[in-house]
Every structure is written in C-alpha cells, then in structure tokens.
C-alpha cells in the first residue's frame, strides 16, 4: 500500500468512526429472577405480605402478571413459633391473622417460590419498634396555611409535625397524601416548574403522594420535629400526613431503593436486608396520622 493509499485509508477510517451513533442494546441477558417482597409489620395490625417477581427490562408486563400466587411463606417469631402465610385471592396478599405482632419483637420471613423454572428462596428479619410513638398535635403546626405563606418579617412558613419518639428508633418518615388532589386543585404557579394538566395527570401519584424523612434521631425517649416543606404539597385543600417510625430494614429500603441511579447515570446496589434471591423490603414500623390544609389565595 502506497503512502497516498494509506493516508486515504486512514482518513476514511477516521471519518467512519467520527460519525454516527453506537447502538446501546439492552436485552434480557443480564436478567436474574428474584422474589420481590413487600411486607411491613405494624404492632397489633393484621399481617399482610405481598410477594411478586421481577421482570426483564424489555418485557411488557402488567401488575397482575407479577404477583406470586403459589409461593411458600412463613413468619417465625423470636420464640421459634412459625406462622404459615396463606394467599388471599381477593387482596392478592399473603396473610396470617393468627399472628399478633408485638412491640420490640423480631420476626423472620422465609419465602420460597419457583420463577422461570428456578427454585428461589429469600429470608429477612425485622424488629418492631417499641411503644411510645405518637404525633403531638398540640405542639405541631398542622392546621391550615396559604401556599408559601410568609411571616410578617418575610420568612417562608412551613407546616411542622412534632412527635414523641419510640425508644430505640432513630428513623422517622412522613408521607403526605393530597385528599382533594385533581387537576383543578393543582398548584400551577409554583417556583419549581411550569406544568399543565397533562403533566399533572402523567405523574399524578407522585404529586399526590410525597414523602421525606429524618434519620439518626436520639434513640432515647423525647420529642422530635419534622418540617413539612412547601414543596411536599402540590395541591390546594386537605392533606393527610402519616408519620412512621421505622426499623433498620424500613429505613434502608426507603433511603436507598429509588436512588440506585447516580448523577452520571451509573447504577449501584441498594441497601436491602434480604438474604438469598429476594429484593424489596420486610420491615416494621409504628405510625400515627394527622391532617392539614393548604389554602388558596384568590
């Protein structure tokens, strides 16, 4: 090959590589079946656990297709007593109403199922928070407030919830649920972004149901407080706020499960406390509920 031919070949090669687009092919090669566990224990509440499966990214799937209906599930308490779970067809949940969940007690869930012809099993242990947790409504600021209301000196005001801690529990989360949420009550003039009704409907559940948390609170008895920020409410009208005191499983799942994609797009593993072939959460919590109202200016 002459020098001239070599140069032409080199330039052609550079131009070929410098143009176009590489194909990103995501297929099912990386798929590994898992048992998805969604289970929360509350003291003296009925025990209900949803068992599902995961699915390949290129699959088109409905929520009804992923429920596991013939899995084997058992909850065992600290004393070693086992409570087999049975599948409730109406609720699409595994239940055992004989199990009375006690404060401060550990429970272990063992699950096994056959998914895509693979025999899978998973196990997780949760410890239920101790008693004493409650919202202190008299000390909270939860009545009503205009959206982004300001004090006389111009400071932005927030709803605030004050509660008594459960001894030994250092993690608390709140969930705000817009009780009058629809496109007519949406707060369109907000400082974050301009939305229209279509945008609201596209992400309706995310606007309607918001949450936040505080962690590493003192494990001793006493009061803690959480601000309910103006950007936690996207609708005018009545809102329900549920405050949870959660155990380690509850905390780590909530903190890490939807933060698996980093800012540069890469993924990392969430912190899930499930051994074996399971993902999801088997946690426990105590909870209390209060209400507040976001007023509209006319």
């Amino acid at each position, binding site marked *: 090959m002459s020098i001239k031919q070599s140069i032409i070949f080199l330039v052609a090669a550079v*131009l070929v590589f*410098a143009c176009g687009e590489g194909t990103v092919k995501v297929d099912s090669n990386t798929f590994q079946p898992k048992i998805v566990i969604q289970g929360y224990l509350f003291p003296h509440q009925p025990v209900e656990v949803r068992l*599902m499966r995961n699915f390949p990214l290129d699959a088109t799937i*409905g929520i009804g297709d992923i429920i596991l209906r013939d899995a084997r599930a058992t909850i065992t308490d600290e004393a070693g007593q086992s409570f087999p779970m049975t599948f409730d067809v109406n609720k699409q949940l595994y239940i055992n109403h004989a199990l009375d969940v006690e404060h401060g007690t550990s429970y272990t869930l063992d699950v096994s199922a056959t998914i895509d012809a693979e025999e899978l099993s998973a196990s997780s242990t949760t410890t239920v928070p101790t008693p004493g947790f409650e919202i202190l409504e008299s000390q909270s600021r939860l009545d009503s407030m205009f959206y982004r209301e300001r004090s006389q000196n111009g400071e932005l005001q927030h709803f605030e919830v004050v509660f008594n801690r459960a001894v030994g529990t250092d993690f608390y989360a709140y969930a705000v649920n817009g009780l009058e949420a629809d496109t007519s009550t949406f707060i369109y003039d907000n400082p974050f972004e301009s939305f229209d009704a279509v945008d609201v409907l596209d992400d309706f559940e995310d606007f309607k*149901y918001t949450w936040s948390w505080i962690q590493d609170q003192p494990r001793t008895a006493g009061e803690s407080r959480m601000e309910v920020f103006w950007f936690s409410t996207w609708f005018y009208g009545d809102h329900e706020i549920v405050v*949870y005191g959660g155990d380690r499983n509850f905390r780590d799942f909530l903190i890490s499960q939807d933060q*698996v994609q980093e*800012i540069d*797009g890469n993924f990392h593993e969430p912190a899930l406390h499930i051994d074996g072939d399971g993902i999801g959460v088997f946690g426990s919590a105590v909870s209390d509920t209060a209400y507040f109202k976001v007023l509209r200016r006319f």
Partner: protein
Amino acid sequence: MRLFFLLGAFWAFLAYPVYGQTGTSATVSGFVYDAANGEALIGANVYLEGTQIGASTNISGYYVIPRIPVGKYTLVFHYIGYQVIKREIDLAVGDRETITLSLPAESIELQRVVVTGDAIPEAEKLFEKPLSKLQLNARQIKAIPQVAEADLLRSLQTLPGILPVSDFSSALYVRGGTPDQNLNLLDGTDVYNPEHAFGLFSTFNTDAIKQVELSKGGFSAKYGGRLSSILDVTNLDGNREEFEGAGSISLLSAKTTLQMPLGSVGSLSGSFRRTYFDKTIAKAIDDVPDYYFYDGNIKAFLDINDKNKITISGYGGEDELGVTFNEDAEDEAGLNYDWGNRTGSVRWTHIFNPQLFANFWVTGSRFDSDFSFDETIDLTEKNFVSDISFKGDFEYHLSKQVVAGFGFEQKNLHLIFQQKFPGGRINVDTRDKHYALYALTNWRPNYRWDIEAGMRFNYFDADTTFQNWAPRFSAKYRLSDSINLKAAGGFYYQYLHRIPRAFVADIWVASNKFQRESSSRHAIVGFSKDFANEFQLEVETFYKDYQNIYSFNQNVGVDISADDFDENGEPIYIKTKGVFNRGDGDTKGLEVLLRKEQGAITGWVGYGLSYTKYEVDRINQGRRFAPRHDRTHAVNVVANIDVKNLKRVWRGERPIEHKSNWKIGVTFIYTTGQAITLPGSGYFITTLPGRPVPEYQLFPSEINGFRLPPYSRLDLSLTWERHFRGWSMMPYLQVFNAGNRKNAWFVDYDNNNGVSSIDVEHMFPILPTVGVNFTF
C-alpha cells in the same frame, strides 16, 4: 529501615570514586535563558564538545558540570529551536567558572539544519526524558482543537495512558488511577480542584504556561503524596527584555496575558480570564444557568544576583453559578453555588556553591465553596481546603557521574466540610500535618547507563499517625545511539481521599482512623527509539496496584451514624465513618507513542491498552469489576499542519517562515466504551406502606458488567496566522466533534403502564466555536 540503609550504602559506594578526583579538576556552572524574553530554559543541553561530559538545565535554567579535568574545551549550549552557542574555555585546577548566557531563537529555516547538524540529536532528548514523563509547552497545547479554547487538561487527555471519564469533565484518569491520585502543582503549589465547572476549562490558563510535565508513574523520591501522577505546571516568569502581551476572545471567554521587565532585576507576568456564558448563552437559552468564572495569575521573578533568585507566584479564581428553577413563577426560587482556588508561592533559588543548588518554597493553597438554596430548603454547604507548605529541594553534583538530591516537605492541612440540611448537619473539620524527607542518587557510570535510586519517608499526623517508607528506582540504558531501554518503579502513598461530585467541586478528606493511607506500587519497563531525528517512538508496559483506595459510598445514608446531637436533638456528623467504601485494585497496560515534533506536520499517534480492576468492600458481592473509567483500548491521533510549508515540503523545498499562514489542527480519539452498570430487571413496589399505587423500580445487574458503545470523536481547527510589524493575529474556527457522533453517556429507563422505554443520553454534539488570538 533496611531499605534506607541499603540506599545509604549505595550512595556511599557511588560517592567513593569522587574523592580520588579532588584537586585535579574544575567546575563550570551557570544559567541558560531565552534571549528574546529572559525566561529560563528548562532542559537545555550544555556539554563539552568532543567529550561525553555535559549537563542539562533544571527547572530554574541552572546547569553545573563538576569535576572537569583541566584543559581547553569548547562549551556548547543547545536547546531545540534556539541557536547553538559555543564558548571556548580554559580550565585550570580548582577553577569555578560561571557562564550564564541567553540563547537567541532559531529561524524555522535553520531549525532543520540544526537538528540534523551540529546539535544534540532528538535521541539524546529521548534518553534524558524520564520514563513515563510527558512534556508539553504552550504552543503544543494551543494547537489542539478544543470546545471553546485551548485547555491543558483536555490536551493531556489526547496522550496515551490519560483518559477522561466523559466530555463533561476535564479530570485526568492516569493509568487506571482516579483524579484524586494526581498531584497538581502550579509553580510548586498544590491545586486541589483544578477544574472549572462542566469540564470545559481547567484552572490553568494556557497563555500563562511556560512548561508542563506530567509523570504517569514511576516518579522519583522528590515527589510524593499521590498514587498515580504528578502534573507540574510552570508559569511564565515574564519577559525580562521588553513589554509583551497576548490575548484571545472566543464565544465563551476572553483572556489576556501581559509580561514586562522589572528594571534590570527581573520580570513580571500576569494573566486574566473571564467567561461570559451568563451574558450570552444564558440570556438566550432558558435552560442554561447563569454561570461564569474568572481567574488570574501573577508572577514576579527577581534576579537578585548570581547566587540568589526569588520567584513570587499567585493564582486566584472564582466560579459563580446561579439557578432559578422556574423563571415564570411569581415567587421565584433557586440555588447559588460559588467556589474557587487561591494559590501563592515564594521560591528562593540559592546556589551555595557551584555544586550545591537549592530551591526553598513557601506555598499556600486554598479552595473553598459555598452552596445554598434561597429559601427553597434549609440546605447550605461549605467546603474548604487549606494547605500551607514549606519545602526544600537540594541538588548536589558530587561528580560528573553522580548527582545527589535530598529535601524536605512539611504540609499543614485544614479540611472543612460543613452541611446544614433539614434534620441535621455535618461538620467535619480536621487539621492534619504531613512531613516528608527524601534522598536520591543519580549515577551515570558511563555513556550508556543512568541509574537513580531514592527513598521518601512520610509521616502523617491526623487523629492517628501513619509512617511509610517509599523506595523508588529508575534506570536507563542506551542500547545504541538511538535506542534506549528504561525501567522504573516504586512505592507510593497518599493521605487524602476525595468524594467526587459530578459537575461541581470535590470534597477532600484526610486519612484517619476510619480511612487508612492509600498505597500503590508501580513497575514500568520502556523502550524508546529515535528515527533519524524525525520520529520518536516510545513504548512502555506497566503494572500498578492499589491498596486501601476509597470510593464514595453511594449508600452513605444507611451507613453513617450521628456523632453528637445539637440542642434541638438533631444529629451532628463529625466523623467520616461510613462515607467511603474501601477497596484494592490493579492496572496493567501497554502504551505506544509515536511523536513528530518538527516539520510541516507535527503531532503524535498514541495507543493505550489497559486493564483496570477494582475490588471494593460490599460492592458487587466482593467480586472484582472494571471501574467506570476503564478503557481497554484508546487511540489518539493529533496532527498540526502548517499548510504553506507542507506545500513546500511536498515540492522538496525547505520550510520557511511566512507572514501569513494557515494552520490546521486535527485530533481524533477512539476508546473502548465505558464500563457501566445497567439494571438487570425491573420490579414494582410501594415506597411506603400507605402508598396506594406501587412504583416502578430498577435493580442493578453486575457492577460495571456492561460496556457502552465505543467512544470516538474528531475535532478540527483552522487558524489563520497573520504577522504584522510588532503584533500578530490568529483568528480561528474550531469544531469539536466534527462528525457529530452521538457518543453514549448513560442510559435512562422508564416504564409507563408496564411498557419499558430506554433512552440513551449523549455527550457533546458538534460544537463549532470561533475566536481570535493575538500577540503584541
């Protein structure tokens, strides 16, 4: 300790023959400067004609040829691109001749003659160059097309073994190491976050740069504190002969550099640069935030007398970013983030006697950043690094064969990271001290060999202490006049760790009870060959391992715990326990660099083959994986074409200088695609017990077990140079990613009503820019 003893014995052995020569010899020493502007010439060759006796100038332009047998000689001064000057000398017993002179620049016509005639050939330069060291000057950096303007860090990314992680970062990943493992020195001062935002600009203003050296590994005992590389940037001292200026204006920035003599005692140089995104693009496009930065350098050189020189250098820069979320809202909200570096140094160069040369430094480096939301949320952040250092480097020329080096360094570090967020605050505030001593011996027993052995001792004092001995070794062997074999290796320690954050400044944390010192071992073997003074080929193969390297724990929220509580019972975090994941790793590779530095076409072709694997606690079930920046193959082609002289060369004529000329710059990069973690599956689950509708979530597959498509990019530049009497202008057009290749950055996923969708996010598209450079 045993190693230090062995080194001492080696040193004594080398020094032994020296004393036999005492009393029968003479010494010649001095400085070599550029006649045009008085700048010290680094790496100029000074030798006795007809002998193999000679020396190179150091970073101050100083040379010394000790213990020359008495007699008459012709002393030759040579530096590529400058006229060769000869001086006749007659040395008597005990003479200590000081010969300082200035070399005039050579015209382009004669450069061809020089390199093929009466000069040190390129092969000699190749032999002198330490293994794994790269050198660039401002001219070479400016010739490489970039996004907006010439940039040092992005230029270095076109050399084998040095990679970026994406178009949006100019951080250097050297031989599998991460950017925190690079020591960035600006006039001898550490620079901790050497990037402005979004990776388009680094803190090094190319107009102010005199010389850049990057050591990719196997560096000598003189340097320490980092595992992977040393980037040593020396700014212009200033023109000692006349007032001189340079400037440029582009679509994104304007800058100027001015130099002037300070009477007869020295010189002064200063640079200033400001971007104007905020005044242009941000006004036109809603989604572009208000962002700008400015920075400036100033440097004074004082030539006190033949034995004392003082250099005072300073740098300051500030980045300002303001974001308003929804400008249409009646009640606006947003965030503000500003950050910047300040560095300063005073260097005293002192010649105790012709054989003992020393540099003493006092340096200060400070980085700080402040972040806040305006009312949106009670979140503020302050990040602060302060480093006050004292250091001294001594060079003792024991004989023609033996040069001993020794020195010290003492660093006083103050690192603060404070964050106030709803429900708690972080207040990590540490003051740490780093002490280092080093000694090395360079021995050239004959024409063929050049051997250096050294030892560095580190003592790091934090909430616990670390002591480490770091032996270093290098050897060069001249197989023939044009072929060299080289080897280098050593132990390296690092006491600072970084929390990287995309687009904004990193957070630095010192080693402590929870994060030990990091360490690495390098082993490098190389081969270099000069082809008839036209092409220089360098081939290197290396192995490098890492112990205790720390990466940010992405699940930091679940692993940290409160160290204290404030009066409201809110947690305070003052330790770094749980912030990092510890890991080990290694990199092995092969690099090939073919350079052509003279003629109508200059540039290089580089190829890098490398395999990097990390093993990080609690990540990927403890299995090894390739980090995100790992690239198996990387090809770089950089060509700078002098159009008129190319035509002349094509016609068989010699290149000449033209009053006006066209220059074309071409850069082509091809690399293996990035390692990336992709989700292995999707699932539905409710985030909290009360949420009525489950959410779509992703569960990752094997960590970085997937590769994005190969990255490739072609950048072009076209510059018209026009030289007038006393000034020149160089308007240019640069096209970044001229092929508009859609290089994948990452993959985004969504699921609507059970139907998954995948979007590939891309890096920079084609980006043309225009500007003009001028000098006067």
